[in-house]
């Protein structure tokens, strides 16, 4: 026997070894799920879902811009906004079960529609996560200075956040820190997540109770009586406002789908994910409704002072309202939002980094994106590239826009509609052979994702078209074109340009030589 043969008796599996699971789904040979089985119960899964949504951060970032679009019909839009998210997430789950892969939307869209659309799907996902990273960091910075001001009882410190160079510098520090933690591969523990989620829910509940008691005592800023009309989505004035509201509310539920895709890591893969998804959405809808109603009842939708329609309050509504509503306890709100956005910032880094890594791995991007750090076993180049992109995006938005947070959130809503839309339709196309083979397949693999995908892409086109108006969003514009349009379309166009460059440099992926186009074959035994 040769020396080579002697030494290459590499053993990857032994009895009792906690080795990589060789379980592959659907014979696709794409990848394997690596998470341990039997570790997360129902409550744990709900905590993970709520933590992914980060309700304190989401509300402060999205409540203002949504009110600006739909006024008092905020509760209606929040309810309606869940429908496309639910429909798409059902498709997402089917794809995740059939082809679990780090590239998610990128890989699935490549499989279903071929490399070009797949590349753009991946680009949409990466852009959305990069944009949310810059927004998360900015929100964290706002509340960081606000908390300093509250701690030292020196309101002047909160204004530091409005100092442009200082704000950009602090945001870059936050992004760099989160990138470093993510690169080092440090993980969030169970206890930390439980405390974080409980604290967020508690503080949001406190805010609502305090706001309602102000209304009852007649001390509210602009006490507004709740009417059934607030829950009627058809009362929203225009389709433009409706589309903008829905694409924003996609953002507020973004993260919920994670509960549906948890399988092997749950104690009871048959039941836990579905129940957790249901409980999570009930918890989230209840807290959103209470807080939305409390905010509207307390502050009204007026565009002056504390009014939720005041453009100055859009960027971060709780930064303005927490003080008047909660009094000295407003610091708890700052702490809740700072902790949830900082934690999300760190964990969100994982996502674009892994998608970039996956694209590098499948040679849709230069090979260096596929590099893994030998010491920390995390994507190295891709993580740093994500941080640089998030920093660059923030610097550009911040210098061009008077109200950068508002515009990034609106652009983000658009971007999520884009890649979720593509992903949902990829599900329909990939499973087309199974679509009419039974009620379950018809509903989950065809009807739900088709409806969700179409709704989201319609919202995307409509929002993109409307955002050309220079008055859209915060009213920032470049050469008469709305900044939201420039940000959203600019990022997508940049993707198209990069895609063609990649085609010139590394055509193999685009010729379908790496990820072959395919579809699920109907197998009556499954």
């Amino acid at each position, binding site marked *: 026997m040769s020396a080579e043969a002697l030494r290459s008796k590499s*053993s990857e599996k032994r009895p009792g070894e906690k080795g990589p699971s060789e379980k592959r789904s659907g014979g696709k040979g794409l990848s394997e799920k690596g998470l341990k089985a039997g570790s997360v119960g129902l409550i744990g899964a709900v905590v993970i879902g709520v933590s992914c949504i980060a309700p304190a951060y989401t509300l402060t970032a999205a409540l203002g811009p949504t009110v600006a679009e739909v006024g008092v019909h905020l509760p209606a839009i929040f309810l309606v906004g869940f429908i496309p998210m639910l429909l798409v997430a059902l498709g997402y789950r089917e794809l995740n079960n059939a082809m679990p892969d780090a590239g998610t939307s990128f890989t699935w869209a490549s499989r279903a529609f071929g490399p070009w659309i797949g590349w753009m799907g991946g680009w949409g996902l990466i852009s959305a996560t990069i944009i949310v990273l810059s927004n998360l960091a900015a929100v964290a910075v706002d509340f960081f200075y606000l908390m300093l001001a509250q701690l030292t009882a020196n309101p002047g410190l909160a204004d530091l956040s409005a100092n442009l160079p200082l704000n950009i510098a602090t945001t870059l520090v936050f992004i760099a820190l989160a990138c470093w933690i993510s690169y080092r591969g440090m993980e969030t523990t169970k206890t930390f997540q439980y405390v974080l989620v409980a604290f967020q829910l508690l503080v949001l509940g406190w805010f609502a109770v305090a706001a309602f008691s102000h209304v009852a005592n007649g001390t509210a800023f602009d006490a507004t009586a709740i009417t059934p009309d607030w829950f009627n989505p058809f009362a929203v004035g225009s389709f433009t406002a409706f589309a903008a509201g829905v694409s924003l509310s996609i953002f507020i539920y973004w993260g919920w789908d994670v509960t549906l895709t948890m399988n092997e890591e749950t104690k009871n893969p048959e039941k836990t994910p579905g129940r957790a998804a249901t409980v999570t959405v009930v918890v989230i809808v209840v807290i959103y409704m209470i807080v939305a109603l409390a905010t509207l009842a307390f502050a009204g939708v007026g565009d002056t002072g504390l009014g939720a329609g005041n453009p100055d309050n859009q960027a971060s509504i709780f930064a303005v309202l927490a003080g008047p509503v909660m009094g000295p306890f407003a610091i708890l709100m700052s702490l809740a939002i700072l902790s949830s956005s900082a934690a999300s910032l760190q964990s969100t880094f994982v996502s674009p980094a892994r998608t970039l890594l996956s694209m590098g791995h499948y040679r849709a991007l230069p090979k260096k994106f596929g590099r893994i750090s030998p010491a920390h076993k995390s994507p190295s180049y891709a993580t740093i590239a994500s941080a640089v992109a998030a920093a660059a995006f923030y610097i550009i938005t911040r210098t061009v826009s008077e109200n950068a947070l508002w515009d990034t959130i609106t652009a983000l809503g658009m971007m999520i509609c884009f890649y979720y839309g593509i992903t949902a339709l990829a599900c329909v196309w990939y499973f087309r052979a199974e679509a009419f083979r039974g009620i379950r397949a018809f509903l989950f693999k065809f009807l739900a994702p088709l409806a969700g995908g179409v709704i989201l892409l319609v919202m995307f086109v409509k929002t993109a078209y409307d955002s050309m108006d220079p008055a859209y969003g915060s009213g920032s514009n470049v050469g008469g074109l709305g900044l939201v349009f420039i940000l959203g379309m600019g990022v997508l166009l940049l993707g198209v340009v990069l895609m063609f460059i990649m085609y010139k440099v590394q055509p193999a992926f685009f010729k379908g030589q790496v990820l072959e186009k395919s579809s699920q074959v109907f197998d009556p035994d499954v």
Partner: protein
Amino acid sequence: MRYVVGYSANARGRDAVNLAIALARRQNASLELVLVVPDDSPYNVVHPPAAGYQSILTDQAKLWLAEALTLIPVDVPAQTHVRKGESEASVLIAAAEEFGAGLLVIGAGSRGLFKRFTIGPVASALLHAATVPVALAPQGYGRTDPITRLTCGIGLREGAQDVLDVAAAAAGRRKLPLRLVSLVALDGGGAPEAAKAPREHADERLAAAVKDRVFHGVPVELAVAQGRSIEDAVDHLAWEDSEVLLIGSSRLARDNSLFLGSTANRILRSLPVPMIVVPRSYKSVAQRHGSIQSEEVNQ
């Protein structure tokens, strides 16, 4: 004899492989290269979910291990393993127990600029919990030739006999000359008379340690090293490039596990050669086998 090598595809991993080769060649041990990939905690919420990262990581890990095998000369048998776990240290300990390994070899160095040993978090965790001896390769360890001498650090406290037992057995097994060293730190002062008492005490201690002891026919040398501090004492001692220091773990350790005491920690920081830390009350594989064999002979 099998050694588990905690491998990573960087300079630290190569240090560990080199040391493992140098140690293995002396007694025909085989190497089990273990590369630990982190397990995703579900509480580390990743959104959008990126489930397949583990498979890319595992593929990469296998590639890295294949590269690692090319570092190992033909005369040293080696196998590779990819293992998943949240803590690298606990995975390595589990692997060492599973393989019945006599030694766990890791690269200890991280970016210490001036000190040869700057303990990384994994090495540090291992030194507090391992149940088998842990060999630490200093940064930039490039030798793969067999080791030529074993030095054993003899401490003041109870438990010093245990490490001496292991050292005597290890030297006997490998037919290596053994050097027994006592380190003396003289804080402050500097008057030669002040140094006398501790020095004499150290001499006595060494003499007591070797009394009534069988050394399986290997040459034994006694040495006392002194300096202003433990680090200084280590620097004053002459070290051969090809030797290894064996020390016992702290008396704070539970039986059969490691806990690096403060003295050992300080030695580690100035040591130019690899170090093996032996758990308290540890009996080497050969010692255990030895006793079984002699029982059989008696029957």
